[in-house]
């Protein structure tokens, strides 16, 4: 990664560090607070909510949160939906990006700019008719409305990111493979995808976060509690256990944890994926 090699004034450097440390603390406090509350007993929380470290660590909250609702069920549902949509977005998105980055055909630019324009479209404009479509197809209270859209490219931003990345891969590689008799699918699969690790990881991470976080979709489409995802399950939890804050916080931590773990795993690629895509510099 490129760093700016500028020597700045020592006092300026100290200021930078002070600001960074203060900022980092400010941003992580709610997070740490959530964690510590989830480990407090009900009495301790009631008597001393401002205390940072719990006097006695109580793991029970997690157990209670996990068993109070079919939380394991919600988790499995969410993992299933997220896995399917993430892989569908990556595969279909990279195919579309391949089409936009390597081929010339009629109306290509029209399609491309139309696609970019959809990034600015508020979802509310399409929400109701899409709901009507799924209702006609008798797909309300199934996972289809949440999953199927991911198979169509996985969103304009992802396609754009991948297309930018593909443009940076020398075309000579494609041509050499073609001379060796490779078809277009093979070039996509054997040349472009293996060289696009950072961009694919970035897109996968974005898709994962988007779906894991998705609240409005499940809220509209899912009715039976056994099909709920964690996000709406958590809201149900809030309604029925609203007074047991420490348990609500434990449930929140369970919801947050997978995203944090995944972020750390993909961290390495993350900034590089955006950076090399030229998004920053255009």
């Amino acid at each position: 990664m490129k760093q700016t090699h500028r020597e700045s004034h020592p006092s300026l450097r100290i200021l930078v560090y002070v600001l960074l440390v203060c900022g980092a603390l400010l941003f992580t406090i709610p997070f740490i607070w959530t964690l510590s509350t989830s480990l407090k007993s009900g009495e301790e929380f009631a008597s001393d909510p401002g205390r940072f470290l719990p006097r006695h660590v109580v793991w029970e909250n997690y157990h209670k949160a996990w068993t109070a609702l079919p939380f394991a069920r919600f988790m499995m549902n969410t993992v299933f939906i997220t896995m399917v949509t993430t892989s569908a977005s990556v595969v279909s998105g990279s195919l579309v990006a391949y089409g936009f980055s390597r081929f010339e055909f009629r109306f290509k630019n029209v399609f491309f700019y139309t696609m970019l324009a959809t990034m600015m479209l508020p979802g509310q404009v399409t929400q109701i008719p899409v709901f009507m479509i799924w209702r006609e197809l008798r797909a309300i209270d199934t996972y289809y409305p949440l999953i199927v859209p991911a198979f169509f490219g996985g969103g304009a931003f992802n396609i754009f990111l991948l297309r930018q990345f593909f443009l940076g891969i020398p075309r000579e590689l494609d041509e050499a493979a073609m001379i060796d008799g490779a078809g277009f699918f093979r070039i996509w699969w054997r040349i472009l995808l293996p060289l696009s690790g950072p961009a694919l990881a970035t897109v996968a991470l974005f898709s994962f976060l988007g779906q894991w976080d998705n609240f409005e979709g499940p809220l509209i489409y899912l009715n039976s509690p056994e099909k709920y995802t964690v996000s709406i399950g958590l809201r149900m939890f809030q309604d029925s256990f609203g007074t047991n804050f420490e348990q609500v916080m434990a449930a929140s931590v369970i919801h947050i944890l997978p995203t944090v773990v995944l972020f750390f795993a993909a961290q390495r690629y993350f900034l590089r994926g955006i950076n090399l895509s030229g998004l920053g510099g255009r």
Partner: protein
Amino acid sequence: MATSHRKRMVDQPGFWGFLFICPWLIGFLCFTAGPMLTSFWLSFHKYDLVSIQNVGVENYRRLFTEDPLFWKALKNTIFYALVSVPLGIIGSLSIALLLNQNVRGQKLFRVCFYLPSLVPAVASALVWQWVFNSDNGILNTMLRMVGITGPQWLQDERATPWAFALMSLWGVGGGRMVIFLAGLQNISDSYYEAAKIDGASPWRCFRCVTMPLLSPVMFFNLILGVIGAFQIFTSAYVITGGGPNHASLYYALYLFQNAFEYFKFGKASAMAWVLFCILLCLTLIQFWTSKRWVYYEGGDK
């Protein structure tokens, strides 16, 4: 004849290119273009999932003249956007600038700042609900330590809009900051060196080198920031449900309620189109003014 024609098509790379973008194109037609037109059509009808009836511009007329909540929601949303978008841009740019200094532990800092945006919206809403708790919430506890009595953030209708704006700030270390950081790292050092040789102060470097070269990124963040701000939904839905006294009834929330709670699909579609027109105007204005302040290196668009 037919086969030879097909063979010719298959031999053309353009045909394959079109084939590859087909998933997007089909999805666009089925889930974007088609529904958009349908919702426009629907906005002139009364529809409750059972019967449908053409009412002309009645939905729009009622929204504008007979629905005080529509105006309330619009006002709330504009206030939210006016506060959260500039603060968000300034915040995320500041963090990116700090991180772009050659600091040690850059990775750790980056994670700290990014962490809040990893928190799923419902979980973060629950966390904030508690941060803003007027009796034993962390914010008022801290304010009490320095001798200030904090307001009843989520019960007082004067404080609630600020609570939501404050909440939005927690996410400034996320995607927008990363995009700013990527933009900063793409600025060639040679510009700074040249400026330094000319004796430019750090502030002048920032104003005359960083800002112009970063302006396309800023523009991108600004446009998506405004659109995002107008769609605030989950936090309001989970934390306050629109209260107190509709102080956090945001546009997307009111639209959702009309559609999926009151089943007024015609009215909700009209609202969606009003939102679309507002955002389209705002975006076009930004594109129009961008000629004055967005600088593209190399001079091409």
